[in-house]
């Protein structure tokens, strides 16, 4: 069953064609990987899905709904959350506040309730705080909940970004190079955590460079090269696909 389908999507910036006729289906409840060399257009795909950019051609459909023209915050509310390649947490806010920002659309009370601190409002805030702590303890950062986020190490910042993305209660989680800059031990821990996320029923769609990581983790993989999908399938198929090997390693007669 497909959760997100990308159909014949193209994107150009002026005369520069970044994506061309890209189509693939991201199923729910599994881990889908999009790989490809630097500059292949992977992050552009994420920016199109999350509404930061508009596609020049084709359609993007999430759970039967066309996302064309939808504002980013509405797409998030529909159930797509993402993390960033270059971590974008709110550094001057506490960890708790970071995660609570993710719940923005789930915490609801009016201005009057807010001003008079009515029970409804207090209760909503209390529930949000509890849920945020729960998410923080899930990524093992609850003991730092009241510190500002700039106190965190690189790996911890990635985990915080995870917790914050999950706080929006997504159905599909987009991870942009989740293990960039991590050591092998940290990568293994993160792999387990991503499997955990999938087993809890979320769909995961990730972009990654690290082949070992992708092959070991993803249920299905699509390969993007120069803005086109050159292969799609299970990890074994991708590993042995001649076009993929060529994209990553070059052709033999190139070397000569």
């Amino acid at each position, binding site marked *: 069953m497909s959760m997100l389908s990308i159909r014949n999507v193209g994107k150009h910036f002026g005369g520069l064609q970044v994506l061309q006729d890209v189509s693939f289906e991201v199923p729910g409840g599994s881990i889908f990987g999009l790989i490809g060399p630097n500059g292949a257009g992977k992050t552009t795909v994420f920016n199109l899905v999350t509404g930061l950019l508009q596609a020049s051609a084709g359609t993007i459909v999430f759970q039967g709904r066309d996302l064309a023209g939808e504002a980013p*915050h509405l797409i998030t509310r529909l159930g797509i959350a993402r993390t960033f390649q270059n971590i974008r947490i709110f550094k*001057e806010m506490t960890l708790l506040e970071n995660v609570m920002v993710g719940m923005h*659309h789930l915490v609801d009370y009016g201005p009057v309730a807010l001003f008079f601190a009515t029970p409804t409002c207090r209760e909503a805030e209390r529930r949000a705080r509890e849920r945020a702590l729960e998410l923080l303890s899930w990524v093992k950062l609850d003991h730092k909940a009241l510190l500002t986020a700039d106190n965190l190490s690189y790996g911890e910042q990635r985990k915080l970004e995870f917790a914050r993305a999950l706080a*929006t209660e997504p159905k599909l989680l987009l991870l942009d190079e989740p293990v960039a800059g991590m050591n092998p031990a940290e990568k293994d821990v993160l792999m387990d955590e991503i499997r955990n996320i999938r087993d809890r029923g979320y769909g995961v769609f990730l972009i990654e460079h690290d082949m070992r990581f992708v092959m070991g983790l993803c249920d299905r993989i699509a390969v993007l090269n120069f803005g086109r999908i050159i292969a799609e399938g299970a990890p074994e198929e991708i590993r042995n696909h001649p076009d993929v090997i060529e994209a990553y390693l070059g052709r033999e007669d190139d070397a000569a």
Partner: protein
Amino acid sequence: MEGFSDFWSTYSTLIFTVGIHALLALSIWLTLACGLLSLANAAFMGIGAYTAALLTVNLGWPFPVVLAAGALAPVLVALTIGVPTLRLSGVYLAMATLAFGEVSRVIILNLDVTGGPEGLNGIPLVTEGWHIVLVLAVVGYGLARLRRSRVGRAFEAIKEDEVAARLMGINVDRHKLFAFTLGAGLAGLAGALNAHYTFFISPREYGFENAVDILTMTVLGGISSLIGPVLGATILTLLPELLRFLHDYRLAVNGVILILVVLFLPTGLWDSRRIRAWFAGRSQK
């Protein structure tokens, strides 16, 4: 008791001015809190002041209604100009709001109903000391509640990283417009209160210099909490008075003090993080 009434009769105007300035500083704190550099608040104050004064003088409306109208008029203006200008950010927004401020001032200067360059005279003196105290208390409490709510968190998220805030499901444009509009309302309220205290208003009071003054108070005090703007407003109002013994040099010394603060305390006098760290350091000793 007698000592107090002497003190009050000597300094009441000064204390009132501190209150008005604090309200203005809080009005611009709102926009700064979500990362908007706006210079329109002096103009909003003027719109509020003229609306209120004209309603009192010409139509004799009751004071509370006049105050509400003084706050509402700039809110309506802010909604109209906010939609196009808040697409801008940084210095570009500052330029656009600055231009708006000048246009407003020139319009007031050239209308007949506002008394033109001569201003409006003979506004009844109905604002009392406790009015401003009450308004400040209610506004301070309301903003403190706001800061610790989902809206306050959204403001801070927008200030730190607009794209990330958008992708957390926050409607960034609406929050910016809300901060801008509410700030305009507070500035208008300050203007309306002030007009009924000073007897006389003129376009000169709402120009570029005043816009910068308001901004300076808030930036000097620091925007990390609500204490900063109030502290900044108090200091900038009192400092010229305290420096009176320096006679002709007092404005120069005033300027030097501001430069020193900005150089050595770039996050403002009251930075809640620095103060928390300072207390934590002391309690450990």
